[in-house]
């Protein structure tokens, strides 16, 4: 029902958190496999809302649906947003095939971030990503590489992929390596020409030369991978409360109203996606049947 106040108002109200704003696709890059990175900018000339590394937006393919997508670029870099989308369903397919110039809807940012901007100087930070799990970590790693170059603490990046031709953001990984950070990419299956290790990411953690005392760890990827990564890091002596994981659930409203993304006591869209392993995700990642 339309209220009298709405009818008489001469200035449009600011859109609420449930109202998508139109964004134009300004760039489209086919990454590896079925992943596409879209660059988006607001159609209405407004600035992209500030966000933290690790947060997500709800992105609408008009006429198809809406889906939660992690912010994959560095929000400080430019006036556009980057979202890497994996083509796994109707909505993501529509987004992945959206041409430059197309208009999509977007609302957000939502949820918790990695908090790398608040890290104290000194401790090592370990980043472990599997597949497209590197997307929500991309901006954070950029920040951590800058932190290392300023002598404020080392970063160790471990990324896993199915095969050498499936390594996401290979250019970024090279750039971070050239900047002096430790970057190791491992693949499930290698072949001649591959120069990195072969095996799952967890096999690299026991010998990764970081100092676990005071270290922080950020991990994102398939949940099973995160469980094993978190355990391996704790086995190395990392405080489980300093191991952060990014959860993926059925995020819909983005603001903790609808309950579709409930996981135990958490509403992942509001209380996550980034949560500590110790005391939170360690129990939730073992819940079955959700």
């Amino acid at each position, binding site marked *: 029902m339309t209220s009298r106040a709405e009818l008489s108002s001469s200035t449009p109200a600011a859109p609420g958190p449930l109202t998508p704003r139109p964004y134009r696709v300004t760039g489209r890059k086919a990454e590896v496999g079925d992943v596409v990175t879209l660059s988006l900018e607001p159609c209405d000339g407004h600035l992209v809302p500030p966000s933290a590394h690790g947060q997500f937006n709800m992105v609408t393919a008009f006429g198809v649906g809406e889906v939660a997508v992690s912010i994959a670029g560095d929000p400080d870099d430019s006036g556009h947003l980057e979202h890497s989308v994996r083509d796994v369903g109707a909505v993501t397919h529509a987004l992945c095939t959206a041409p430059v110039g197309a208009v999509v809807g977007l609302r957000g940012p939502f949820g918790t971030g990695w908090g790398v901007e608040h890290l104290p100087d000194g401790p090592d930070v370990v980043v472990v990503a599997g597949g497209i799990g590197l997307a929500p970590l991309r901006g954070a790693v950029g920040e951590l590489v800058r932190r290392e170059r300023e002598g404020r603490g080392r970063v160790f990046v471990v990324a896993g992929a199915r095969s050498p031709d499936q390594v996401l953001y290979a250019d970024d990984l090279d750039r971070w390596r050239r900047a002096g950070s430790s970057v190791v990419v491992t693949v499930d299956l290698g072949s001649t020409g591959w120069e990195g290790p072969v095996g799952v990411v967890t096999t690299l953690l026991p*010998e990764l030369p970081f100092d676990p005392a005071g270290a922080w760890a950020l991990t*994102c990827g398939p949940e099973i991978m995160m469980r094993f990564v978190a355990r391996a890091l704790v086995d190395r002596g990392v405080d489980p409360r300093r191991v952060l994981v990014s959860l*993926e659930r059925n995020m819909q409203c983005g603001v903790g109203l609808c309950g579709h993304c409930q996981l135990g006591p958490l509403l992942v869209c509001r209380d996550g996606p980034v949560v500590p392993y110790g005391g939170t995700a360690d129990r939730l990642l073992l819940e079955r049947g959700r």
Partner: protein
Amino acid sequence: MSHTVETVLRSHPFLAGLPEGTTELIAACSSLATFEPGQLLLSEGEAADTVFLLHHGQVAVEVHRPAGGSLWIETVGSGHLVGLSWASSPFRWQFDARALEPVSAVAIDVGELRAGLGRHPDLGFALLDRLMGRLVDRLQSTRLRLLDLHALGDDQPR
């Protein structure tokens, strides 16, 4: 610094913490070995009569494809053991192992090792217990890879 079998074994992570006498027992049936990039340490189907403790370098455990070329199943680096089939019948290598870079290793004669461990069952138990730990690690990482986690879409971030 030139290395001897004894110096390499004394600092080798695989043997760290094993009972006194283990290193000496292994040293008595070992020699130093080096491999150039591309050279095979182990060949599929051959008798598993020598096992290697890597001191330096990377080795790919691989299987060759009928169509040509090889698939790398895993890579093994310094501080690790190359070769598991020596520990169980029929004592034949199931895969190839190829040096990816200059490799130095301690080559252990399995027949002599088995005889030595037969004379010192306490050391044999300790060594097999250590080996079992590595086997479990590899089994678990293999199971994770069997899940083909990167191909699953239902719980991945988008």
